[in-house]
């Protein structure tokens, strides 16, 4: 029983450590500035840049994976409003507006990221 108690203490320390490191990473990565540019990359290549201040709607085609996503920029936020991938995770991510935030579509190898 004594050994069991010691294990729980170690568990607790480990969990706190992971949470602390994650929280630190969170603070460092999210500079929380309003982004100005939307960068679209497909298969690791930056293919397009849009200003976050100009409302627009663009159809993004991924030639290699034969998929498409529709990017919408409105009120200084970017979101994917439709996609023909099976999981629809990019769509469920919703709107992003801060520097460093991303929308990822794994099946189409597409990443939408915000820059300053």
């Amino acid at each position, binding site marked *: 029983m004594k050994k069991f108690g010691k294990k729980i203490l*170690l568990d607790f320390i480990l969990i706190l450590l992971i949470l602390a490191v994650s929280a630190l990473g969170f603070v460092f990565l999210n500079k929380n500035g309003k982004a100005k540019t939307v960068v679209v990359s497909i298969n690791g290549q930056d293919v397009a840049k849009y200003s976050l201040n100009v409302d627009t709607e663009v159809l993004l085609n991924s030639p290699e994976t034969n998929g498409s996503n529709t990017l919408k920029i409105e009120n200084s936020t970017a979101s994917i409003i439709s996609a023909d991938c099976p999981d629809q995770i990019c769509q469920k991510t919703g709107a992003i507006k801060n520097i460093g935030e991303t929308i990822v579509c794994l099946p189409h190898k597409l990443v939408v990221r915000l820059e300053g």
Partner: protein
Amino acid sequence: MKLNIKKITLLGVFTATALILSYIEALIPPIFAALPMVKIGLPNIVIIFVLYKLGFKSALSVSVTRVLMNGLLFGNAVAVIYSLAGALLSLVLMALIKKINAFSVVAVSVLGAVAHNLGQVAAAVIIMQTAAIFGLVPALSIAATLSGIIIGLVSATTIKLLKNIKI
């Protein structure tokens, strides 16, 4: 790993259970709207149980079979690569932590959950060649820690309740 009929049957039952849990998990809507890829990790209950009861090789076979079949039945081919990277890193780390024997099932589960995300993100970064995806890691790790604690407690209870069953 000695393969007799009993063991093959057992591993089949465990794989089926893990698959059903994957399916149930896919039916649950995303917990955090901003991070739709966050899942509770229900199949990990089975993986942890097999790891503790039958060992690393059995857990490996159940885990890999589950990922492949889950991809074939409910997912798509691309997702299998990410899942496999996550599942393998997760299992290797869990087996190592278990071997150290300083932590309980909960810590094993938490590290397994965090490693699962890390493996998937690493695969995504390699495949898509975009380091920006690493930005998701802190938020994912916090979510994984919370779900890992829950799954760890369930696994610990399951292992305890089935302690006297010889398999």
